[in-house]
């Protein structure tokens, strides 16, 4: 080896070191950016023994990344369901109230209890108009609470629907971005360019995508990546596939929402060939199509049970069908039998015939005849006695007597109205607890997975600093080497001149 080749090696090492310093400073800059991965300069020796930068690589861990994608999807799924349930809960103030004092709860169970207690007090003073008004206003609160719970439940469904629409739009835009970045990576790798920043970016997009919909990935030649839903439908392969969904703006109890399609394949709903399992979208569809409708069914059954418990019969003809009494719905003629009437809780009203503000007579609550005002066959207090309490006591008994409910609503079919209303709250709270504890678990798991991934691929500042020190020393040594070679040449030239 000659002195000039030694100079050339030292020169080369200076350029390698400055590249490496560049990598270190880039790492330091990204140390606190989430999703930033540690970059490494790959060195190799050239034929003459001098070092050469072969390329920049990044620290990656495919297994941990897959875990992160899965955790993202599971966490987003249960958290969106939990949010929806919490909204229903809050509208009735269940969780924040206490059963020891039901006056703060707006749930049908608590208001039904208030109505029963008001009837009890009315039955002890049947001539007292104030007691009657109290019972009537409790009945109105109960009807209003069922109306409101229906409205909230349907709002939760409508909101889930619009969130599905916006999530689908976001997926399409993420897939388009993914396509561009993926294209850069594939062509960059083929051309030998540094693609590490794009790889980080692509992982970031993938992570965002996994929050919306459960995904699996396959990496192919030149870091080309294909994305599939967790059910196997293709989201991206060389080009992005279209995710489509037609939103429905208004929801009632009978509204059936549209389903979502990936690349023309149905991926949500009962008939889906490739049904997605996780991600925010899976949660939203579950909330919109299963959980909220089931609660709505229970509300409708409570409303139907109420109409039944307060129904009046024709006392001259016991075989005649029952007529809706205190609780009814617009244009009702008969009491619905024990099958679900979708949306009944939303249209339940207190019969105007018992409401003095609507031209009714409040004492019909005591005497009967709410269903057919003026028809003596439906009046229970035939003598018109002011102390008649038998009908009121009968109503109280009806509330706590077992009646038939439609098993389609998912609760016991033969219980009292009171039990049915409390069971429904128990069902809701059970779902709430299930999804909130699963959200808590998934969130903890997600942060652990993210930490593990960050530890495996992220930057440690101290490591970079000590690396910097090494490079500084190496740079000094190389510079010193150049100076020595220079001075050796100098003394050589001096001796030639002399």
């Amino acid at each position, binding site marked *: 080896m000659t002195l000039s080749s030694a100079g050339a090696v030292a020169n080369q090492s200076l350029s390698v070191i400055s590249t490496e310093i560049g990598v270190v400073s880039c790492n330091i800059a990204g140390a606190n950016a989430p999703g930033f991965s540690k970059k490494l300069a790959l060195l190799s020796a050239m034929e003459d023994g001098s070092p050469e930068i072969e390329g920049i690589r990044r620290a990656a861990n495919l297994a941990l990344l897959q875990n992160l994608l899965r955790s993202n999807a599971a966490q987003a799924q249960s958290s969106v369901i939990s949010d929806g349930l919490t909204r229903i809960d809050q509208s009735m103030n269940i969780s924040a109230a*206490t059963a020891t004092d039901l006056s703060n709860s707006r749930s049908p169970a608590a208001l*039904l209890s208030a109505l029963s207690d008001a009837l009890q007090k009315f039955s002890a003073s049947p001539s007292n108009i104030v007691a009657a008004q109290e019972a009537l206003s409790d009945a109105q609160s109960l009807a209003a609470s069922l109306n409101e719970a229906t409205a909230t439940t349907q709002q939760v469904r409508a909101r889930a629907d619009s969130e599905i629409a916006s999530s689908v739009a976001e997926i399409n835009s993420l897939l388009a971005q993914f396509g561009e970045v993926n294209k850069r990576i594939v062509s960059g790798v083929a051309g030998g360019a540094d693609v590490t920043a794009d790889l980080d970016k692509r992982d970031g997009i993938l992570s965002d995508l996994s929050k919306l919909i459960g995904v699996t990935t396959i990496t192919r030649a030149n870091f080309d990546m294909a994305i599939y839903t967790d059910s196997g439908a293709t989201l991206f392969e060389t080009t992005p596939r279209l995710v489509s969904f037609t939103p429905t703006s208004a929801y009632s109890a009978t509204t059936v929402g549209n389903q979502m399609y990936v690349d023309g394949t149905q991926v949500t709903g009962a008939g889906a060939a490739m049904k997605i399992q996780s991600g925010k979208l899976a949660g939203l569809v579950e909330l919109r199509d299963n959980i909220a409708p089931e609660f709505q069914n229970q509300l409708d059954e409570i409303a139907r049970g109420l109409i039944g418990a307060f129904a009046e019969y024709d006392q001259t003809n016991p075989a005649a069908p029952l007529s809706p009494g205190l609780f009814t719905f617009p244009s009702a003629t008969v009491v619905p039998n024990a099958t679900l009437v979708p949306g009944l809780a939303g249209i339940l009203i207190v019969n105007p015939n018992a409401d003095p503000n609507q031209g009714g007579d409040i004492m019909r609550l005591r005497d009967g005849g709410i269903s057919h005002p003026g028809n003596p066959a439906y009046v229970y207090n035939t003598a018109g*006695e002011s102390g008649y309490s038998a009908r009121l006591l009968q109503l109280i008994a009806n509330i706590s007597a077992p009646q038939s409910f439609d098993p389609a609503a998912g609760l016991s079919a033969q219980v009292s109205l009171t039990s049915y209303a*409390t069971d429904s709250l128990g069902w809701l709270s059970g779902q709430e607890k299930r999804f909130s504890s699963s959200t808590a678990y998934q969130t903890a798991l997600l942060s652990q997975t993210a930490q593990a991934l960050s530890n495996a691929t992220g930057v440690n500042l101290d490591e970079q*600093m000590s690396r910097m020190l090494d490079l500084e020393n190496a740079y000094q040594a190389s510079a010193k080497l150049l100076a020595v070679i220079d001075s050796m040449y100098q003394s050589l030239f001096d001796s030639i001149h002399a």
Partner: protein
Amino acid sequence: MLTSISTYSLTNDLRRSILELQSQLNKSQRELSLGRVTNLSEALGVNVALDYSLGVQHADLKAITETSNLVLSRLEATQVALTSIVENARTLRSALISSQNSGSAAVLQNEAATALTTFISALNTAASGQFVFGGIHVDAAPISDYFASPASPAKQAVDLAFFAAFGAPQSSAGASAITTSQMQAFLSGPFASLFSSANWTANWSSASNQAVQSRISLSETILTSVSANDPALQKLAAAYTMVSDLGLSSLNASAYQTVVQTATQYIDDAIAGINRLQSTVGVMQSAVTNANQRLAVQGDALQGRLGDLEDVDPAEAATKVNALMTQIETAYRLTARISELTLAKYL
């Protein structure tokens, strides 16, 4: 291979643990101040159904206890009225016994008139907005004033019957001619029929025979009133009317004797009947009181079970708050010190 930790996860971890501790502290502190769980659904899950059914029952018991107290106060008023009726009856009876000769007829007549008025006002007792002797006809005084002006239907009927029997009004000069047997026939015939059930409800009483029904526990409904239409009360009214309004002072001695003796007999019968009424009311009272005691025991048990579900142990909650505060302080110190730990400081 060395396991390394990234700077991002190190700082992020510290931040996250502080946030988590703070939210736990907030929850524990709220639990401590409320004395119960802060989030029913999170704490109980499906057991919210049990919690609410206990709560509903508890509220029911409370409502029933309230109404039972109302019922009790009415029964007490009934009992007091009956007692005063019996006392007055006894007083008049002694007066009758000690006035076997007609000398004190006018005094006796006055006494009986007062007794009748007191009797009527006792039967018109009202408690918490209801006339207690009215049966389920609770919003009107059951007995109208006998001595009202214009004359009450009851008095008109008596006057008519007297005139029809003897051809002269009470207290007229002609009344002294009435013989014992005439008087006996009148008293057991036309006069007695004035106090038959049909005439009683027509002339005297607007009370209903149907008793008030009250629900006194989750499963018991009992009758909780006695009616002014009870035969014993009718009989007493007859006795009072006899003495006060048959013109006692104008009768001859033997007719006077007949009236006084019959009245005494009537009062004896009436007192026996009213005693039976009193014991009926007593049975009602004890049924309500017993039910109330059971409700109180049940209520306590329910309260206990609700507490088991909802309450937090204050000592435990306080300890938890203290522990969390220590933990948060430690976390603050650690954050400060760990952020000092960087190689850059030593270069």
